[in-house]
């Protein structure tokens, strides 16, 4: 997988990664996040681990914790100052404030994706690795994500997507995996 890939993403670059199922989009993002180690070749990510915002297929949140508790735990692990306030602000921004004290396990797919986006952006990452960020989002959720990305225009991003047109205006490059 990912044979012959030569990719250099400059700071501030916004790269759309496209390709059919099984082409290695998720693998590429996990490699960049440091969750996989490359078996061959070289990979250099000039961003510290704590400065990566990783959105996976799964929301990476505990089902038995509330939305606020999940973000508070991540805030603690990311050493955020005023983490409760930041968690609250993220939940408000993604329209989850009223559900802040509900357990993530009771959330719909779209709400879980919004919570996952809150977790991804919580620590103001320098590098965004987003795997199908619009998955499960309704029109309002998609609009909120567009707004969030617009506010973070200077952040480097790799976005794996089956719908490149949704982010075409933002992209600086496209990588098509076969």
């Amino acid at each position: 997988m990912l044979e012959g890939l030569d990719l250099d993403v400059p700071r501030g670059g916004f790269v759309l990664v496209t390709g059919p199922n099984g082409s290695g989009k998720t693998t590429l993002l996990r490699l960049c996040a440091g969750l996989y180690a490359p078996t061959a070749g070289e990979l250099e990510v000039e961003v510290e681990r704590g400065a990566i915002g990783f959105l996976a297929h799964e929301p990476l949140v505990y089902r038995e914790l509330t939305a606020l508790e999940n973000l508070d735990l991540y805030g603690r692990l990311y050493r955020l100052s005023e983490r409760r306030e930041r968690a609250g602000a993220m939940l408000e921004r993604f329209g989850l404030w009223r559900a802040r004290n509900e357990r993530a396990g009771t959330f719909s797919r779209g709400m879980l994706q919004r919570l996952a986006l809150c977790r991804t952006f919580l620590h103001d990452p320098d590098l965004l690795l987003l795997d199908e960020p619009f998955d499960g989002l309704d029109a309002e959720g998609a609009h909120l994500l567009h707004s969030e990305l617009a506010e973070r225009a200077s952040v480097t991003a790799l976005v794996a997507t089956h719908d490149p047109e949704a982010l075409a205006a933002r992209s600086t490059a496209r990588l098509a995996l076969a």
Partner: protein
Amino acid sequence: MSAYAGDVAALARKDLLLEVRSRDTLPAMLLFVVSALTIFHFALPAGSSERAETGLLWIAIVFTALLGLTRAFAPEREEGVLDGLVLAPCDRSAIWLGKTIGMTAFLVLAEIVALPAFALFFHPLSWELVAAVALADIGIASIGTLLAAIAAASRARELLLPLLFLPLAIPVVIGGVGASIASNPGSFLGFLVLYDGVFAILSWASFEYVVTE
């Protein structure tokens, strides 16, 4: 409190909170250990040796621990949370330590019920037995949590964990039974302290490599 200790405390508190809400692990451990001791009580012939009775208690403890360890990383596995924890800038060994503290707490709670039940069914408890159980809990939770993390990454996790854990639990049973019935319990308790120290350090140092592929 240092940042590391704060991370560990937050992760351990999270595990206890998850258990309070889901009640997935502890009730099963309690039911298992009490059921096992009840079966042993009726299965063991009258006048059996203290060694046999104590041995059965240790078997019950090891398998109760195994039951808890099987579920140790279930909440992380369900929604891929382990990836989220691994990506956080905290020391990854804090994840292991927090989980180990949570698992030790579950074991202690199970034994708060199991030891009086053992005393009721078999013979009175000695301080050596209680000390051995307390020391064994630390060793079992330390190595068990590491092995549970290894097994969690496998599709055959339910099969893999006993295969990895039970051989490494044999020294705990030897030390535990020895400390409970031998005339020189000090050396067996010392052996358990050594076991705890060796496996805690090994697990603490190697956890990072287990959770990154």
